[in-house]
């Protein structure tokens, strides 16, 4: 993995007006970088703004404030159609609900080829068909499936069709918005393995959004934990799992049920109490251990450093 930045998110804010005077701050000042070829995991509970972050990055929503730089170029702001099309080919998305993410009135072939049609990527209908068959094979389906309709497929198969659709425009960055949370366990592994395989073969970069920490830990190189629109902790996957510092992360980790009855019998759960934080100043994002950032105040920072130290 290189340390070359592919995506930089700078002070990203996304506020939704819900009434004349009330504003929901779904994403509130987010800063992080995604390096080329890595998988960045974004976890948090429902309503913490992780999906909104993904959708804002890909311009489904216009950001209230802040920048998203892709290869150093800002994605947001006024853009010509050509510039936008370029971003659309570079950046793609895999969606959560395999039942809602495919148009029920379109054949699989047309669904997968939609990006190719929009960007004029296939010379004629034969080339288009061939490319679709190729993509179907890549995701583990076969070419007979091209003429069928989405309702004939199971959830896992549909999710793979969604992946094929994203791959059709040869993106280098894919935002996977809870791609496995609607799938059965055995099928989740299929999709995760497929995503890993595609990453190895095509050098893709992923932003992997999920609430299931064990899967995120498995697939990600680095993980960011979100809580109410803010990033509270960011570290390498192993590091985060072995040395969670922020109490919210600790409570999340302690709540995951594992397929191990003995462990489950002895499990102790933390509860997170947001009021335990030091409120003397606005918390900031600080590096407590190398590459391990935590949202904390000066006082908490000192405490964390004492407790978790820089040395191993």
């Amino acid at each position, binding site marked *: 993995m290189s340390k070359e930045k592919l995506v930089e998110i700078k002070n990203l804010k996304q506020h939704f007006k819900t009434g004349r005077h009330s504003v929901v701050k779904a994403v509130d000042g987010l800063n992080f970088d995604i390096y080329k070829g890595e998988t960045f995991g974004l976890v948090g*509970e*429902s309503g913490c703004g992780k999906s909104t972050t993904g959708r804002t990055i890909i311009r489904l929503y216009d950001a209230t404030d802040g920048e998203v730089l892709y290869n150093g170029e800002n994605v947001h702001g006024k853009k010509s159609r050509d510039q936008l099309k370029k971003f659309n080919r570079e950046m793609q998305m895999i969606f959560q609900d395999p039942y809602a993410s495919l148009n029920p009135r379109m054949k699989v072939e047309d669904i997968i080829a939609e990006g190719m049609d929009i960007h004029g990527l296939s010379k004629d209908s034969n080339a288009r068909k061939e490319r679709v068959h190729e993509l179907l094979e890549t995701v583990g389906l076969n070419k007979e499936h091209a003429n069928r309709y989405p309702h004939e497929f*199971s*959830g*896992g*198969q549909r999710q793979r069709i969604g992946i094929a659709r994203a791959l059709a425009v040869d993106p280098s960055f894919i935002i996977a918005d809870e791609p496995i949370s609607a799938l*059965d*366990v*055995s*099928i*989740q*592994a*299929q999709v*995760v*393995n497929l995503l*890993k395989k595609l990453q190895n073969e095509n050098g893709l970069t992923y932003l992997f959004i999920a*609430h*299931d*920490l*064990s*899967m995120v*830990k*498995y697939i990600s190189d680095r993980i960011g934990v979100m809580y109410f629109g803010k990033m509270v902790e960011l570290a390498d996957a192993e590091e985060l*799992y*072995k040395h969670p510092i922020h109490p919210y992360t600790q*409570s*999340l*980790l*302690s*709540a*995951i*049920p*594992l*397929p*191990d*009855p*003995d*462990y*489950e019998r*002895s*499990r102790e*759960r933390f*509860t*997170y109490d947001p009021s335990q934080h030091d409120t003397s100043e606005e918390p900031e994002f600080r590096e407590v251990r190398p590459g391990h950032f935590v949202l904390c105040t000066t006082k908490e920072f000192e405490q964390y450093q004492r407790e978790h130290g820089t040395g191993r």
Partner: protein
Amino acid sequence: MEKLLEVKDLHVSFDTYGGEVKAVRGVNFDLNKGETLAIVGESGSGKSVTTKALMQLIPMPPGRIKQGEILFEGRDLAKMSDKQMQKIRGKEISMIFQDPMTSLNPTMKVGNQIMEGLIKHQKMSKPQARKRVVELLELVGIADAENRMKQYPHQFSGGMRQRVVVAIALACNPKLLIADEPTTALDVTIQAQILELMKDIQKKTDSATIFITHDLGVVANVADRVAVMYAGKIVEVGTVDDIFYNPKHPYTWGLLGSMPSLDSEDEELYAIPGSPPDLLNPPKGDAFAARNEYAMKIDLEQEPPMFKVSDTHYAATWLLHENAPDIDPPAAVKKRMEGMAKTSGGSEGEQR
């Protein structure tokens, strides 16, 4: 141990335009008093249909119970009339559904929703029922019950709502509680709370629970015994330790192998290939054969019977037949099992 529920050779089918969908194809299990049985399986494996059949909550038509017996304390629920069932539903058997958003009536005060069952089944007077509601809400960990019972569901958070649902289910001290994916729609931290709550309550009330889920982590947490369902049949059943530390059915191997453990290295997950069969025309022989890398010729021709592994542990796979070649579970699963056996060996200081 006293048997509370016995399900014998249950078949449930749905008649659709395409033909008969055999959702449950001969399910046998029993449940003792005070025990928690987890039914695991993918969507479409028939786990929900099985439990809905217990409660006679299958819409008929298109659904029908084709054959089989459901003996609840010796009475056959499958043959009961709607009227008789109404007396059992909510009173002796109650159910917790997946989605706390839709299982409460949004236009009714929470307290009244809990009281409904009490007044109907227990013939309580209003003041009595009100007192019981406060007790119940306190039991499920809702503080300030007196005031909270006067609120509407939308004033509760998701986790709190599920607690209310649990309170409703418990209102009449049911002997059997059926929980259909009660925590799937919740966040992990809330899920952990609800699971703790349910275990806690079970200890106090000594009711039996059938817990439907597809999350093996949850199973490990709550279950005494586990039944693994695939394509409308139970393929493996045993105590929770049998299933997690000594699984015999290749499908169970697949399920266990497909979950990453938090301390696993970056090896590939063991994924079960393909998709579950279409129950409109289930395949001949073992329904799992097409996805089973250890499939034998016989799997394509004959359905395996339940083989006995131990007194508590049965599995339906030909691999257990005396003539079958010796086969080890896939490396990933084996490693997992060994790893777990190690931790269960009792290193208490497991770092977290």
